[in-house]
């Protein structure tokens, strides 16, 4: 009961902040409203039991990605008369079309028989037992450090390349 109320509360915040993001003319204001959306999303993730994702949402998105957004905006020096071209008809049609596709996918997901096991994905019950056995974070750590260990290491290489690349491209004297 309480979780339902909380869900609608945070969903409302997320939608309100989302609308503010796309209607602000100042990109810095948009970015700040986006933080509100991120926090509301983190709360929703927590409500559905995805605690780790909720923490990541705040740590990475509201923290790190947001910093990048703001730096890019400040780096570009967008003057005061920005984004008039974003309101053209073509963009509206594109955005509307994307929204329709998203709705169609959502409708499809809701209409689908979610109890049927699809391939190896074993449904919410299996996830629940995993979480019960290893804890909310352990259920993520287990596949990450066993089955998908190789992917983790390649991600490490990717981050290393990102470090080298950032230094090479952006450092004033190399």
């Amino acid at each position, binding site marked *: 009961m309480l979780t339902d109320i909380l869900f609608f509360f945070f969903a409302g915040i997320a939608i309100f902040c989302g609308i503010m993001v796309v209607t602000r003319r100042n990109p810095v204001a948009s970015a700040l409203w986006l933080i509100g959306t991120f926090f509301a999303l983190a709360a929703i993730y927590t409500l559905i039991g995805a605690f780790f994702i909720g923490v990541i949402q705040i740590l990475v998105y509201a923290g790190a990605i947001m910093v990048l957004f703001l730096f890019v905006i400040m780096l570009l020096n967008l003057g005061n008369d920005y984004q008039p071209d974003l309101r053209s008809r073509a963009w509206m049609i594109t955005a509307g079309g994307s929204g329709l596709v998203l709705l169609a996918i959502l409708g499809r997901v809701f209409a689908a028989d979610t109890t049927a096991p699809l391939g190896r994905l074993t449904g919410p019950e299996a996830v629940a037992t995993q979480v019960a056995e*290893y804890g909310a974070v352990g259920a993520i750590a287990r596949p990450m450090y066993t089955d998908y260990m190789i992917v983790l*290491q390649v991600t490490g290489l990717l981050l290393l390349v990102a470090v080298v690349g*950032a230094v090479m491209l952006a450092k004033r004297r190399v």
Partner: protein
Amino acid sequence: MIESYLPILILLAISVVNAVVILGLTYLVSPYRPTSVKSAPYESGMPGLGGTRDRFSVKFYVVAILFIVFDVETVFLVPWAVAMRDLGWEGFAAAMIFIFILTVGLIYEWKKGALEWD
């Protein structure tokens, strides 16, 4: 599980209420007589230097990128730290290899002087 997050919810509620109350009280109680000096942005008490829409040096950006890389590394390591005993030596080895790769990056940027503000 979700119940254990109740304190965070209460904390959240208190902080929101606190902020609203403080701002609301100042708005209601304090006198409001602006002058051009008072409404200027506060820059450590000195007269303001230029506008706020100046372009920022790309040096900030290097720092931000390096921060993100190690932030993401944390994200990968937190689950391992939580489930370390459960994952055993194999998980430990995997985490050490991952840390080793990122340490190479750290040594590189250190020697390269990317952490210095020149």
